């Protein structure tokens, strides 16, 4: 059952990604991307990352994608459709590069000794049982990664100031 669901959502994620790359209008591309992100959230649930799945939907499929949609509507794009694909040489080069790169990474991941379970799933199971879905991520975040967490808040502050400054009509 889990495997079946995994392949279903993997197919949805891939279809959404391809729909985004080949979509005719920005809005169509964005909706395909949202479908892809939702299926990734489902895959996170299948991989026992419940908290990550929740913030994937809340932050990504909710906030960031609404921001994209807002900008598309603000700029009134996709009204007059014109092909924005590059010339054939670019498409051929891009297909070759991304195909070969993806194939190389896939081969690396499929190698026999690429991924060995070093007790991670057991660790996660214990953490989920003892601390619940949020605590399992929050405890290492606030114990071992406290400084990066504070730096992330600084980064968000800089991003807010930068976005306001850049998007303002006149500084």
């Amino acid at each position, binding site marked *: 059952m889990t495997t079946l669901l995994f392949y279903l959502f993997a197919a949805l994620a891939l279809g959404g990604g391809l729909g*985004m790359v080949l979509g005719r209008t920005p809005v169509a591309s964005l909706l395909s*991307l949202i479908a892809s992100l939702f299926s*990734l959230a489902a895959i996170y649930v*299948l991989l026992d*990352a419940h908290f990550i799945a929740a913030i994937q939907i809340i932050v990504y499929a909710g906030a*960031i994608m609404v921001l994209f949609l807002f900008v598309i509507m603000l700029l009134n794009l996709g009204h007059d459709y014109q092909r*924005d694909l590059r010339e054939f040489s670019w498409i051929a080069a891009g297909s070759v590069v991304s195909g070969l790169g993806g194939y190389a990474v896939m081969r690396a991941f499929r190698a026999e000794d690429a991924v060995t*379970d070093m007790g991670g*799933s057991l660790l996660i199971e214990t953490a989920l049982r003892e601390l619940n879905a949020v605590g399992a991520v929050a405890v290492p975040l606030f114990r071992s990664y406290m400084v990066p967490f504070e730096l992330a808040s600084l980064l968000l502050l800089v991003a807010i100031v930068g*976005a306001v400054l850049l998007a303002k009509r006149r500084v």
Partner: protein
Amino acid sequence: MLTESLILSAILFSIGVLGVVIRRNAIILFMCVELMLNAVNLAFVAFSRAVGIEGQVFVFFVMTVAAAEAAVGLAIIISIFRHTETVDIKNFNLLRW
């Protein structure tokens, strides 16, 4: 399911690269970058099944950076749109050479 997730993440990343190379609409380029970030997140979550919960903590940070990047990037697109009335990157050549 671990290996399958990693393969899926590799394919999603290549789709994102393909989109960045073949499209010219700046907003769609941004979406492709988001897709690549998500592919990497999937790899992190899959590896967290093998190594431990730290992978999920890293996904948290990647999402923070992605949110900041989307906000600043879209602001840049808006301010460029004000100048050129388009988001086609063939017109974005101010810093080209």
